[in-house]
């Protein structure tokens, strides 16, 4: 999807998982940017039809990049800074009762 440009300032990288897959991204990225940089196009399914959606505006307006982060759903990935060890998951339609209970 997205790749780093040739000339960037060097910086530390962070490890995280997306739906269980191990990934890394640059410290300072938002969750949505980290997913794009790892080739993830879709990060949620809509509650109405279940269609796949991915980040659209990257500035907190569209709510398309909603993901589950460390068990908490409905987080706007483009506004949350990535942290080491984050467990990020696809937000599947309406959330399930077990998740909600957390």
């Amino acid at each position, binding site marked *: 999807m997205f790749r780093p440009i040739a000339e960037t300032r060097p910086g530390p990288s962070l490890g995280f998982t997306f739906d269980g897959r191990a990934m890394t991204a640059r410290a*300072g990225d938002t969750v949505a940017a980290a997913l794009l940089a790892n080739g993830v196009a879709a990060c949620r399914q809509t509650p109405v039809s279940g*269609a796949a959606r*991915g980040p*659209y505006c990257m*500035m907190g307006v569209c709510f398309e990049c909603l993901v589950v982060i460390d068990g908490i759903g*409905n987080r706007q990935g483009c506004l949350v800074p990535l942290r080491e060890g984050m467990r990020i998951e696809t937000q599947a339609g309406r959330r399930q009762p077990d998740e909600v209970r957390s």
Partner: protein
Amino acid sequence: MNTIAEIGLLAEHYDIAVVGAGPAGLAAAARAAELGLSVLLADESPAPGGQIYRAITTTPVADRAVLGEDYWKGGALVARLERTEAAYAPGCTVWSVAPDEAGGFELGLSLNGKARLIAAAQIILATGAQERPFPIPGWTLPGVMTAGAAQIALKSSGLVPSGRTVIAGCGPLLYLLAGQLAAAGANIVAVLDTTPRRNWLAAIAAFPDFLRSPYLAKGLRLMTQARRKLPFRTGVTALAAEGADKVTAVKAQRGGASETIACETLLLHHGVIPGINLSNAAGCAQEFDPEQHCWTPEVDDWFASSIPGIAIAGDGAGIGGAESAALRGEMAALDAARRLGRFSEAERDRRAAPIRGALARSLRGRRFLDLLYRPAETFLAPPADETIVCRCEEITAGQIRDTASRLGVTGPNQMKAFLRCGMGPCQGRLCGPTVVELIAQAHGVSPAEVGYSRLRPPVKPITLAELAALPPTDAAVKAVVR
């Protein structure tokens, strides 16, 4: 500058609360703090700059030429704020602004999953702009993004689209982005320019003013550079994104011919419009601006809204660009200081005089761009029935047209009850203007006559647990004691 990392560290009360740390908010907060007022600058992003100066203090982009010299001007605005005593709360969402009963305001804020109510005597909303909705068939497919989204990825993370990339739409920001992405090494296979040819007729009258504007040299340079380097196709009249679970191609109509271009990323842009959700939900009056073709809060010469004590500075009160936004922030701060009794009207006017002059210069030529790059009707009110308009609730243009004409629905507030468009988490940010346009078309009236939705707080969702855990405010405690 005092950076607030936990919501408990906020004061109970500020003289001025500024919402949004783009150029308008940074300038307003800095000026107010320099005048000795207690200031809170709350911003949703992790770092200051807003969208135009996004990640100005944190960007990993090392080659200054990639983002252009205008971008790096933002650093001075942040540096100025850093020298003041202002409180700056990054990652902090303001979800409600409402008048309290003491003549001031109550703000609802969330930070790190905790919510709080605080008070401020004066409010400056500097919530900036968002990209105009660009509803075409397939625009909800993953891989279709706004041009601004790609620009944010570049500025804040040093990322560019990795595969075949198509850019579509029109407007100065589109050409700027195309140039930036090309300079950063992206594979741009087509720029599909939708500028309606007949717009030149409307815009030409505003051309003399444009000739004297700062936009001219910059604009021409951008255009010629972009045109020389990139595969431009002008006169595009219809677009559709294609693909099953992500975009694989874009279909473009030019005159009678249509062309399908394979791509992995499609970037859309039809200019920017004011972000009005917070001002609208706070009750500020707004009107339809026929030249910028968008809803805009009503403000006076000092950017004061219809609600005394709430000012709206920057692009959130009408699109004027970064330079004018910072100047408008300064003016709003001066007027807020006058309202708080720091100085007289005469003193305010004296201090504002040079700013007002610079503001007029910065806005010169704007009208030409507004008229030239106004999107064609077919992109404002999508003709294809299957086009999704409300992305959250998945409501199509056909459903909205049908409900407007068959059930006689005359406004977006009523439309919500029938179709739920605008009732999802984005609160109509991505469908509101299009819904109004479709209703207007169905009844043969102007968008101004249709009116806009009444928006409701919280303007960004908060969890029930956050709300339930709201700590009692001083005022609430007093009410109980009484």
